[in-house]
């Protein structure tokens, strides 16, 4: 899932300071699962903003709505009825994709309430960790299912570096060395020989360096 985290409260407050009435839009997708942008988080943020503004003698009116997802046009349609004339701006608790989908669809000022962090998963309730760097050409089959792009602090393709010590990374001693994890796993599966092959430089044009990426599936298009 996409993992996001609310921006500091006072930053959000500053971003909406000129508004009198705002539409706060939550998302029922990834950010609801990582407990940062679902219906409840919308309620908490809206209440906190209203109270803060009331205290300052500058009341804020809020309209709250949570879409099943913010990254699909059909759900964006559901917003139409909420984006009224008197709404000064839209505060989105979606990830960066949601914010942009709203901005593309409506001619209203849109503000992100979240910092979109990474593609990751739940480690335990309340803990999420990054796992994939969305590189566009997965090489997990070469590394025992452990991503060197993300799990190695330097994204080395031919690790480890000289700083790997006792299984920990030199960048932060609380971090497991990604390449130690890869080595241990390859050893367990008797595939250490695969690590002897030198991995050539990665083609980053398939990642962020090639401009915005697009996936097109002719078979599922309906128009």
């Amino acid at each position, binding site marked *: 899932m996409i993992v996001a985290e609310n921006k500091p*409260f*006072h930053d959000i407050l500053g971003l909406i300071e000129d508004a009198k009435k705002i539409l706060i839009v939550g998302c029922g997708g990834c950010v609801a699962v990582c407990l940062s942008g679902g219906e*409840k988080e919308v*309620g*908490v943020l809206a*209440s*906190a903003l*209203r*109270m*803060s503004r*009331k*205290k300052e003698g500058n009341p804020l009116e809020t309209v709250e709505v949570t879409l099943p997802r913010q990254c699909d046009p059909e759900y964006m349609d559901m917003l139409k009825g909420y984006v009224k004339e008197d709404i000064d701006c839209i505060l989105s608790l979606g990830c960066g994709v949601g914010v942009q989908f709203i901005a593309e669809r409506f001619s209203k000022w849109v503000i992100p309430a979240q910092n979109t962090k990474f593609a990751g998963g739940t480690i335990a309730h309340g803990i999420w960790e990054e796992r994939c760097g969305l590189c566009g050409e997965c090489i997990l089959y070469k590394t025992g299912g452990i991503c060197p792009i993300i799990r190695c602090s330097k994204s080395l393709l031919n690790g480890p570096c000289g700083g790997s010590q006792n299984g920990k990374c030199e960048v932060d001693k609380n971090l497991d060395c990604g390449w130690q994890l890869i080595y241990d796993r390859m050893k367990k599966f008797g595939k250490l020989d695969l690590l002897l092959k030198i991995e050539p430089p990665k083609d980053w044009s398939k990642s962020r360096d090639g401009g915005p990426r697009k996936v097109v599936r002719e078979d599922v298009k309906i128009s």
Partner: protein
Amino acid sequence: MSEFYPKIVAFCCYYCAYSAADLAGSMRLQYPSNIRLVEVPCSGRVDVLMILKAFEKGADGVYVAGCLEGDCHFLKGNYRAKKRVLYAKKILDEIGIGGERLEMFNLSGSSGPRFAEIAEEMVTRISKLGPSPLNSRLVSFPNCKDATAGN
């Protein structure tokens, strides 16, 4: 001169604080009538939004009363409530309402006197802090200073 009469919302777990309140009533213990009890099936039912809404709707103080640690009827509800109370305190500090207006208490169903004591403790604390910055109320309710519990 008008007197500040704090309005305090207490989210009380059915298995402990709510029964303790009942007991306090049967024991004819006096506790301040400022307390508005909200019965919850477990303190773990209380979430941050419920707490914030209580303040938004006019509470000067809020507390959550759950079972003694280790004694939760649902095992961990009171630990969860404790964490949420801490988080809500942080939000209240950020808003400028003040986290000290919110507290978590633990007691057992047989603690009638403790229930009354907690109520007094919160009324004293909130009276000292004054009205919530959201409430400019400074009104007196001369005839309802104290009420008999359970009435």
